Structures are given as C-alpha cells and as structure tokens.
C-alpha cells in the first residue's frame, strides 16, 4: 500500500534557501509547530513565508522571523506578535498584508490553477493605490494574483497513509487551501491511521494533495492552552 509517512528530515530537506513556504494555522490551531521548529533548526534562510498571522513572540513562525530566516512575510494580521511588528517597522522584515479573505482566496486561486481573481474589496480605500486595478462594467475592480508556494507545511488531526486528512475544529482554517497550492505538501499529523479507515464522506482533504506525512510522537507545549488567551 502507498505510504506517505516519512521522517522529518526527509520531508524538510525539500525546503531550500529562497523558497516560498505556506504555513497553515490561525493563531495556534493548525500551526505545524514541530515542522517549524525543525525548519528553524535546519537554518534554511531567505524564505518567503505565507501565513495568516505571525504567531506570537517565541512561538511558531516567530522563531523563523526572529532568527532572520525570513525575508518576506505575506500575511493578514500580525498584531498579536509585537516582535514581528517591530521587525517590520525597522524594515528588517518585508511584510505584505492582505485582507484575510483575500489572502485565503489568493491561495485558493493558486491551488485551483487560476491566474487571479477580481474583487471590489478595498476599491474605495488606500489599498487600491498599491493594487492592480482594472475596469469592469464602468467600475473599478482590484485584480489579485494567485499565490503558489514551493512547499506547504500544515498540521492535521488525523492522516491516513495515502494522505487523506481530517482537521480538528478551528485548526482547519488555511490548512486545506494551502495544501492545494504548493508543489510539495508536508503534513504533520497527530494520528496516522491505515488507509481505508476513514469515511470517504468525512475526509477534509483528499490524499492527492499530500506528499509527505510526519507522525507526531508528542505535542510540545506550544500546541497546548495558551494562558494569555484563557479566562
């Protein structure tokens, strides 16, 4: 049987200096902390990262930002990470910010093999000034290009050996979109089950989009409850 599980080093040596890497997660849930930590240790640099947010100082992709491994971050909102904001303000990090759903659509468009899409979001704002604008039926529309990456890193709750994935609750977010939009897709999974044990109607992402699976041995504290966000 096809078995896409592999070692973390075999998976991550596909990420090279200068690569564009999509990283799943919205805040903590869905963030592949283990893959990120290894990428941090591996020292791969000059990366362009695409992620909704910048996690929080000392956590997740902030490790890559703080260590200077990242040249450009494409995101939606980095307000929860003052370290990233400070790097952006000091121009140590190029940050491209998009409306959150527009970022999601750009990634999805890349995954769907489209060239781009047209939206009216932001046409009446200063966003327009930094965008491609075309005219449609006498009104302005912003043309947004599709985004693709060399590699996508995501976290899943369950994977079968063929790469079919199930996400848990709000950990789904950008993960399935990003998995469609990269040349190579690496998944860390909390549980790996035999192919055939998932209900085909309940698979969130078909295995065809997945190249490598890392079975997580343990969940480090980053995956747990963050006291600063609890009551």
């Amino acid at each position, binding site marked *: 049987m096809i078995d896409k599980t592999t070692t973390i080093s075999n998976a991550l040596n596909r990420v090279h200096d200068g690569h564009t890497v999509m990283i799943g997660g*919205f*805040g*903590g*849930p869905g963030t592949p902390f283990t893959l990120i930590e290894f990428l941090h240790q591996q020292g791969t640099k000059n990366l362009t990262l695409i992620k*909704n947010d910048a996690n929080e100082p000392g956590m997740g992709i902030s490790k890559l930002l703080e260590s200077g491994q990242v040249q450009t971050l494409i*995101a*939606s*909102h*980095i*307000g*929860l990470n003052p370290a990233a*904001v400070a790097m952006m303000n000091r121009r140590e990090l190029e940050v491209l*910010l*998009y*409306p*959150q*759903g*527009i970022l*999601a*659509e750009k*990634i*999805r468009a890349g995954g769907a093999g489209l060239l781009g899409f047209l*939206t*009216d*979001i*932001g046409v*009446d*704002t*200063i*966003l327009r000034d930094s965008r491609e604008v075309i005219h449609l039926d006498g009104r302005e529309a912003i043309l947004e290009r599709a985004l693709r990456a060399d590699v996508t890193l995501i976290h899943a*709750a369950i994977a079968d050996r063929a790469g079919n994935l199930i*996400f*848990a*609750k*709000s*950990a*789904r*977010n*950008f*993960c*399935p*979109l990003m998995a469609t939009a990269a040349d190579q897709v690496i998944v860390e999974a909390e549980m790996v089950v035999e192919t055939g044990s998932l209900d085909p109607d309940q698979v969130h992402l078909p295995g065809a989009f997945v190249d490598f699976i890392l079975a997580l041995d343990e969940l480090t504290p980053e*995956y*747990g*409850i*963050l006291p600063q*966000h*609890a*009551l």
Partner: protein
Amino acid sequence: MPYKNKIAARAALEMRSGQVINLGIGIPNLILDYLPAGLEIFVQSENGILGIGPRSAAGSEDRNLIDAGANYVTLNQGASFFDSALSFALIRGGRVDLSFLGTLEVSQNGDLANWIIPGKMAPGIGGGMELAQKAKRVIVTTSHTTREGGPKILTQCNLPLTARGCVKTIITELAVIDVTPQGLMLREIAVESSLDEVQEKTDAPLLFPPGDIPRF
C-alpha cells in the same frame, strides 16, 4: 458597569433570532455576555466557525477551538467548522446579517476607519475590511471619544478608511446613533448623559427625532 460593558449590553439588543453575526475584537467580544434570553443567533468567526457560544471557562479550554481574536470559546448546538475560504465566502457572499466592529473613527455618512494609523499602527487588516464592506448591517461599538477626550464621530474621517458608507448604527456609552441619508440621527441616549453632552462630544451635527428620546 464599566463603559465597555454598557455598550455591549446595549448592542446585544440589536440582534434578532436567526441572524448570523460576527463579533469583532474588543467591545463586540463582550456582547455574548448580554445575550437576551431566548435569542438564538449564529455567531461566525473568521477562522472558520459558525455557532460560537460564550468564552470557555478557565480549565475547560479546547486547544483546537479559538475565535478570530484568539480567545478559547465554546460551541452552541448546530455549530459547524469550515476553511478560511468558505468563511469569507460567507462574509463576502452576503450571509452575515450583522457585524459589530470597533473603530478609531466613524463619519456622519457611515465611513469607517479602524485599521491603520499611518506611520504608527499597521498590523494588518484581518477580516475587518470584508466584514465592513459586505455584512448586511454594520454596527460600530465604540467609546464616544478617544482616550484623550477627542471626538471619534466626525463629519469626515481623517484616517484611511476601512470601508466607505458602511456603518448603519453607532453605539457608544452615551448614545445610540443611526446613520441616515439625512445625517446622524440620535435614537437613544444614556440615562446618565444629556443631549448637550452627546452633541458636544460629537464632531458632526446630530438630528433629533420628534418627541422624547428613549434612554438606555
């Protein structure tokens, strides 16, 4: 009651059963604490949830279940999860009935400015621009004035806009104000405030309905 809670409690009365509602960060996040009895709403969160309930009690958090403001939350009956693209399809496709947003400035014609202070604060737009532009109804919940006492409700915004003409109602600790084609119409006034105070702290002319103005 702290002013933020007063605003949230009044804002909660604007919801109707069956509505899909998005709650922004800050004051909007307090609204669920004042949910009128019997009201059944579906709270949407940009990170792919419909059917959020109150915040999780200490010790009962689920590491996989946060809202778009990173708070651990609970779920109501009938909840569902989906990806970020569908979440914003729901928003941009017009299925969000009501969006509560905080703001830096709001103008008499409903312009909203709440995401950037050039050269000072620009952490990103998040989902706010799409909510402001596409929700069926946008209600701004905000302190009536800035921390320094300056007006936030203006003839026109000075800061870059989030969306133009999107705000339908402004709820502050002093007043409930509707944005109408004629201008800002005072709908309600706080029991501890006065018409003079509200107008003084509002940098745009206010219209008054005929008769007594209800208090809240």
